[in-house]
């Protein structure tokens, strides 16, 4: 046995790198659940107990999982479900209905989906499913017929729960909660939402029927924990085929996390957001730079990935503009400065640009009016400028009022990096007065 592991221990580097990519990608792309959810043990226990009682004792419950985006709400629920289904008894009896507020945008669709997921449509045979009212009656009838001890418990998972609260009359929520509070088929309603004020969305009757259990996922993650999480996310598991490669890799990750510059970058990310998704995004960028030639993550990779993550989208767009368009943007900036953010139109921008040409320019030539109009329209298409809401479409394009969608800092940053930007244009942009 030991001989065999020894033999296996020397996989070619290419092989190892592929394996590493595989394992880490599964982790970072949320394809695999962590063995144990970190930092949310009590919530995990609470939810597991709750669902177990529904699955095994037939007790109806309702609960909301609330937390900011990327806090691990769905992960928590999935972990709980995985653990719950390890119980044979629960596995055999529990029925699940997964709904998403973004998909089931009204109660009619939601009801159809519920019926489909509960495999109730078989009961009506090939009969085309009738009206919304019939649907509702059908489902309520189905749920009413059950009772606590004999019916299979049904788990309703409402992702983006807050969107269900916008449905007309909140019929679905009322009925689900009403069933959960009456002696009908046992159901557990689990809502997932990132809105902290979700209860205020519920109508008073619906609210009264909701059990007011909320599981909050608010991570009070410290930076050391954050660092530790980075390390665990990147480390290879013990079962890696090539133990020596794994050893090397893990050591590399450890030194990486100890690196001063890396720590700085991570601190910045930590300051910006604690959510797991943005961290995964960063690590994913690092991981994709790992190759056979460079089978480790170096601090430089992380810095580069961080630079990509923090890059300003709008400033990047400015890099692709022509000089004329850039000049128009600068003219708009000056107009904004002069008129303190009041909207402008094409004619004003053109005038500003002409002033610049007359006074300072030696590298720029005047353009025809249509050319400038075209450039202006291009900027509008890129949504760097947008028309003022109130302005009617009837006004001539030259006189339509516009607003600049860029911050000064973005413009200056773009100018700094713009390749071969004429000096006079740069000076014009920096000067306080047009």
């Amino acid at each position, binding site marked *: 046995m030991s001989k065999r592991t020894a033999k296996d221990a020397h996989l070619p580097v290419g092989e190892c790198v592929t394996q590493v990519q595989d394992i880490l990608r599964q982790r970072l792309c949320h394809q695999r659940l962590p063995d144990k959810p970190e930092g949310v043990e009590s919530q995990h226990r609470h939810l597991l107990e709750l669902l177990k009682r529904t699955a095994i004792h037939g007790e109806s419950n309702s609960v909301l999982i609330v937390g900011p985006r990327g806090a691990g709400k769905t992960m928590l629920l999935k972990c709980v479900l995985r653990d719950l289904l390890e119980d044979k008894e629960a596995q055999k009896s529990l029925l699940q209905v997964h709904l998403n507020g973004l998909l089931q945008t009204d109660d009619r669709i939601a009801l159809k989906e519920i019926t489909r997921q509960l495999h109730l449509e078989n009961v009506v045979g090939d009969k085309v499913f009738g*009206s919304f009212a019939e649907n509702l009656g059908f489902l309520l009838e189905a749920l009413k017929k059950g009772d606590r001890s004999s019916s*299979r418990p049904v788990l309703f998972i409402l992702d983006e729960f807050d969107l269900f609260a916008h449905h007309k009359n909140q019929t679905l929520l009322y009925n689900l909660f*009403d069933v959960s509070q009456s002696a009908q088929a046992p159901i557990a309603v689990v809502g997932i939402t990132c809105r902290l004020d979700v209860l205020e969305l519920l109508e008073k009757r619906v609210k*009264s029927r909701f059990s007011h259990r909320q599981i909050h996922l608010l991570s009070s993650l410290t930076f050391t924990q954050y660092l530790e999480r980075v390390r665990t996310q990147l480390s290879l598991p013990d079962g890696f085929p090539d133990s020596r490669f794994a050893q090397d890799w893990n050591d590399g990750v450890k030194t990486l996390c100890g690196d001063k510059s890396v720590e700085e970058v991570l601190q910045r990310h930590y300051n910006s957001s604690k959510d797991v998704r943005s961290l995964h995004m960063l690590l994913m960028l690092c991981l994709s730079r790992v190759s056979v030639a460079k089978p480790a993550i170096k601090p430089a990779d992380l810095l580069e990935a961080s630079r990509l993550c923090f890059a300003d989208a709008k400033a990047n767009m400015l890099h692709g503009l022509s000089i004329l368009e850039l000049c128009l943007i600068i003219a708009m900036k000056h107009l904004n400065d002069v008129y303190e953010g009041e909207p402008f139109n094409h004619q004003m921008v053109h005038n500003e640009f002409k002033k610049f040409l007359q006074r300072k320019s030696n590298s720029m030539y005047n353009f025809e009016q249509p050319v400038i109009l075209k450039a202006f329209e291009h900027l509008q298409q890129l949504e760097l400028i947008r028309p003022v809401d109130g302005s009617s479409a009837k006004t001539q394009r030259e006189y339509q009022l516009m607003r600049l969608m860029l911050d000064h800092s973005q413009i200056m940053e773009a100018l700094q990096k713009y390749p071969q930007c004429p000096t006079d244009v740069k000076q014009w942009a920096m000067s306080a007065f047009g």
Partner: protein
Amino acid sequence: MKYFTRLRVRRVYKWRGEPLSFNRKLKTFEYGSLVISVDGLPRTTVINAGQHILIEGEDEDNPYVAKVIRLFGDESGKQKKAVVQWFVRVSEVPLSKLKLLGREPHPQEIFLYQGRSCDDEVNAESILRPVQVKHLDRAAPFPDSGDKDTLFVKLSWDSKTFRELESAAPVASPPPPTPPLPKPSLPPSPPRSPPTAAPAPARRALPTPDPAVMRRAASGEVRGGRATASAGKVGVTEAESLHLASRLSASKCSSARRRKAIARTPGVRKKLQLSSPEATTRQDILDEDRASEMMLAQRLSSSPPLTLRLTHSLTPLRKAGAATTPRAHRLTPLRKAHAAAVTAEDTAVPLEPDSRTPSARDDSTSPQQGDETEAELPTASGRTPRRRNATPRRNSSSSRGQKASTPSRQTEPNQREPGLTVLIEEDNENSPMLSAAAVTPRSSKRKSAQLVSSRIRKQLNLLENLQVLNSDGDDDEDEFVPSKKELQSSSDEEEEEEEGALESDEEEEVLSKKSRRAAAGSCTPRSKRKTTSTSARTPRKTPNKKIPPGTPRTPRHATPSIPSRSLPARRPGNVLEEARARLHVSSVPESLPCREQEFQDVYSFVESKIVDGTGGCMYISGVPGTGKTATVHEVMRCLQHAADVDEIPPFHFIEINGMKMTDPHQAYVQILQNLTGQKATADHAAALLEKRFGSAAPRKETTVLLVDELDLLWTRKQNVMYNLFDWPTRRHARLVVLTIANTMDLPERIMINRVASRLGLTRMSFQPYSFKQLQQIIMSRLNKVKAFEEDALQLVSRKVAALSGDARRCLDICRRATEICEHSPADPFSTGLVGMSHVMEALNEMFSSAYITAIRCASLQEQLFLRAVIAEFRRLGLEEATFQQVFVQHRALCRVEGLQPVSVSEGLAACQRLGACRLLLLEPSRLGVLQRVRLNVSQDDVLFALKDD
């Protein structure tokens, strides 16, 4: 409405004949029959006592069904009345009760009404026409006749439960001595039961005997009607035996039977003698079978005059008995023998001779066939045949045994005989007696019988598979599925391999039957049985291909249900779990504490309305969770109980909930469906309800309608509410409407005057529970399960009472507290009860806002952004700023904090995250840097949350 008046004008009601008796006390004359003639038409309809009639009601399409018990008029002859035994149609039974039936009701099914709330005296003028009613056994399938006017009775209905007909029968008075002439001798006093009860079993279209009938028969109760029917039955057997060599012996035996019957019921004698010559004539018409079959079909489809027509044809009793078709009417004619004299039937008369032919028909088509087509065209539902196949055999033994003891009971078994023998012989293929098969008519009969039986077999087979396919329990399946044993045997019959063993079984059974039969002293069966048990084999080997495979009929009104779990849910294990189960809102408490006054008010309101037979509205308001719906339900439970023990008249209770419908107008649909089981569109339902509540009906129960969440029934024109409140004010509606909503002033706020006025001023408001009440509620729920410390309960109650007074909230908190207690580390000093600390924790969990925690847990940039927002607000003196403005502050704050300046993208991301949590309120994100930002929490909260850092 128009239709009614027209009808009234056209009909003329007359007594026929002299009064049979005169009641001195009431000064009424009793008549034997009533003639209804229609103006301008020569034909008249005769209504006799004991006949089933249709009585006009609110629904023109479904007039009431009843059976005439007595006809009487006052001295002046102006008033013509009839005492009737009501039957209820399926549509008249409240939908909620229909479920008690445990199956889909047949559309033509009716139930013997045994409730007390209906007046059984009707104006004779309301009689529309006679109708054909067949009594079926409970287990028997419904025959599928295209004939819409034939109705079927299986069960009785006493406004609460369905019962077997027979169980009801003994309750009614014992049947009167059978009259030699039909009516006169009918005892006037308790006339209800005999006509309903006695004929019911005798007319049974299916040959299963009823235990109750048997019992009654055994006790010698059954007399004339039964006996005559039995004579008719004898005719059947005789008809068959006519074609046998043993005809002589058969007649001998039948006459012997007859003698017996006559001995018991002298009245019958005359008739029997009358009928005997008919038997001889029958032979002459043997070959008319084909034609007669067609006639039969015609007759079946032409309904109303059928009964009357049969009256004539029945005089020759023997023949009538022999004919399998008019079996249902076999009894009636005897009752009204003199009706035979009435030949006024215009259409019926020409048919008269033909009506005899069906009797001949059985020579070639076999009574079996006749049964088949008449009673249960196998198309009705694939399963029927099997039932049929199975039942007779099972029941036969018992019936036979009984017959042996009391010859009068021969009615049933005899009637069953043809079918029985055919069925049995199928299995006895190796029976040696082939000789009789040589007789031609018999063989033809056999053939058809074979055909039928093979069909049955085939369908059985198909159904067997089908049943496996859709085995998930829909209700109406039970009806057709024979008991397991039968199923087994019938399916086994299909398997050739097991034949031998089975056959021996069957053989045994037959033998035992034979012996029993011999004991009964009838000589027919022996030879006949043997001979009939000849051919059987063929049909099975050549299955009839004509029958298309029955398509799996999906039940139209299937009620779906969540599949049931394999293991039953676990029972609560310890005190805390027990307490939790009791504290769940869904658990129905033993009583409703703290709502005694409200309960009393609602109870007396509804009770008085029910007792008076009037209608009214009541409006109940109260914040959520104050027990409005629960109280009303409790009231209804109590009233229902009171109705069950006959303290108050029975009533319907219907419940609708504004939240459980998709559109206010669906209220009509739901009410109608609860009331009658009909499905209709909203408009149609509204019209039907309007008619139902707007018109008088001879019998009507009070309807109590609970409208929950009334405010959702609001429409712009408010017509739904208007109708709901208007119906109770109608004179005949007998409708009590209880409405529930949250706001006290809903009528004033959302209702227009004419609606609010109709709602009236009967209002009740449920106050939020006080802490004492909440405490009492929890205590009563816990019911001596000691799980909470006293103080803890008080804390919860006080807290909830201070916040909302919502009992649901209170129970939820207690439930959560038990959970916390269960998982808290065992404290050596703790009592194991839910204490203050647990309750505090639960309260905190439920009532504390997460905003502050959320701000504390936010990332540094997010916190900075919040600060920037506040700083910008302060600078502007407004509670709103654009992102661009806030961003300037944000950058400045970053510099102060010594952090790298953030980019716009980063700032926007932080802003969006805060917006997603609703710490900030944002404009749509497409506005980018121009979007406006507002705080969703107070500035103080933000500053408080950020201060500690």
